[in-house]
């Protein structure tokens, strides 16, 4: 068995496979089919200060090789999370990373402060793909200054790993990764969903109640991989790769491209044990290829041609 465990900003993780926010609930729904202790970590559904009911139906639609969602950050709110879900999560022998969503910078800070005091939270992931109410609903995450500001304001509030989850819906994700690094963020998670849309031609209405939604699943894997490659070449802090991972081969592509770890999202819906299988498959690959430590794979891409994300001739 290769060495799978590693330290992410001081936090020891069992392996490099986590489950992505919003795709594993609060960790307690899959127990019967998958042992969460075999995961590198669990990232919670995005938590907001107040409970959020979420969007009206339809919230989900399948597309070619992927799905669109418009959940609307439905969650029970940080306080009920602490009371009802955290006690269970403390019993699970894996890292728990709380994902935070908010519509003002103050709210991000407030949610983090509430969680910082709680035992059982090992780190934070900041979801910046949220509309900023002060900016008329523009997404924080598409504004580099806002992402820098969020990181700057949150950084002093915790010594635990602070991950910022970037949106792919920007021209140069490298700039956002650099901003997070400059403000002391410990890692960037790359990527959240791509903006997408589907229309029912019978009714001529959008399928999703919010018109547009977030595209995830295998369809976006090539885009996610390019974004991870771009981000990981721009910063020294770890990049956590996310997007369309359903198999160990997919995860290996991300590690080789430069991701220090990966998150499995949509694949959990099809197989709640997907993350565990991916972790086992990475170990198998390392064994078969005589790789003693998974770390050796990270960023091992042999890109002799040297073309970059930005100058390749499409």
């Amino acid at each position, binding site marked *: 068995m290769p060495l799978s465990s590693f330290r992410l900003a001081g936090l020891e993780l069992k392996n490099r496979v986590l489950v992505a926010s*919003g*795709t*594993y*609930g609060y960790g307690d*729904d*899959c127990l*019967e*089919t998958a042992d969460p202790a075999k995961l590198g970590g669990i990232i919670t*559904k995005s938590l907001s200060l107040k409970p959020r*009911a*979420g*969007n*009206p*139906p*339809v*919230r*989900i*639609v*399948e597309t*070619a*090789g*992927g*799905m669109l*969602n418009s*959940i609307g950050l*439905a969650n029970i709110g940080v306080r009920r999370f602490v009371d009802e879900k955290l006690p269970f999560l403390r019993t699970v022998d894996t890292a728990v990373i709380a994902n935070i969503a908010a519509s003002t910078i103050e709210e991000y800070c407030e949610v983090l402060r509430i969680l910082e005091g709680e035992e059982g939270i090992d780190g934070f992931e900041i979801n910046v793909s949220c509309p900023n109410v002060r900016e008329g609903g523009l997404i924080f995450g598409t504004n580099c200054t806002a992402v820098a500001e969020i990181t700057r304001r949150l950084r002093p509030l915790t010594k635990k790993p602070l991950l910022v989850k970037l949106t792919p819906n920007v021209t140069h994700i490298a700039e956002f990764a650099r901003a997070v690094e400059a403000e002391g963020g410990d890692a960037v998670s790359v990527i959240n969903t791509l903006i997408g849309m589907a229309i029912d031609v019978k009714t001529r209405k959008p399928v999703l109640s919010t018109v547009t939604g977030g595209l995830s*699943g*295998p*369809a976006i894997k090539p885009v996610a991989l390019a974004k991870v490659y771009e981000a990981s070449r721009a910063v020294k802090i770890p990049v956590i790769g996310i997007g369309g991972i*359903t198999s160990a081969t997919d995860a290996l592509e991300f590690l080789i491209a430069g991701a220090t770890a990966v998150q499995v999202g*949509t694949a*959990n*819906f*099809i*197989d*709640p*044990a997907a993350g565990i299988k991916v972790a086992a498959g990475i170990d198998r690959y390392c064994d078969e290829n005589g790789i003693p430590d998974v770390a050796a794979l990270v960023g091992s891409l042999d890109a002799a041609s040297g073309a970059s994300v930005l100058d390749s001739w499409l």
Partner: protein
Amino acid sequence: MMMELCPVEGVRRAGDGIYVLSFVSAAMSRSIRAGQFLNLRVEEGCEPLLRRPFSAYRIEKTSIEILFHVVGRGTAALRKKRQGDVLDVLGPLGKPFRTADPGYDTGLLIGGGLGVAPLPLLASALREQGKAVVTFLGARSASQLVTDHLENVHTATDDGSIGFRGNVVGLASDFLGKHPITRPKIFACGPMPMLRAVASFARASDIPCEVSLEGPMGCGIGICQGCPVELAGPEKSYALMCKDGPAFDIRTITI
């Protein structure tokens, strides 16, 4: 809940575009209850990407049957399964119908279209609890009416090709008008417009009523939040169809 690779026993035709698929699962056949569903991965790979939910239709020893209508690529692929194939099944999922409720003596089962699927198991469960059962089934036409494994069935078809001409809610209300039943409870399953009609009929007649809902599901197990069902009440809030349902007491939801 478990995930199991189940051997397919076969697929047989049950009506126009309607088929029964049976597969073996000793564990699920023991544990599944009327109203629960199974989430099937119809193909490996990503077309279709997501699982497809189907009600448990019948249990025969260790076999489980589902009754399905070919409407898209998932169900088209299911139809092609053969003995020897293996089906990846996640289940049993959801909450069973609340059959144990002491507040009724007769279950009125109302099924529209493929809404008949959960009724045979439900009828058995009711009989085991000593309840009487009357069943009303509606379909487009005779060729799409699947009355097998059900007793005491009254039928309606849109085209009048068999039974009552009209919709199944009209049939049920007509029947109840002529044959008053004491302490009934309605269990209904079918397309949303039918369920709305059932709900208003139940409310108007003050009959307790559970409806089994259908809609898009991402996971079937409560981790995607993709299947909201609006709860009754002053504040906007949602239950999850997959985890809290698929059957709901009509007093608890906005339908």
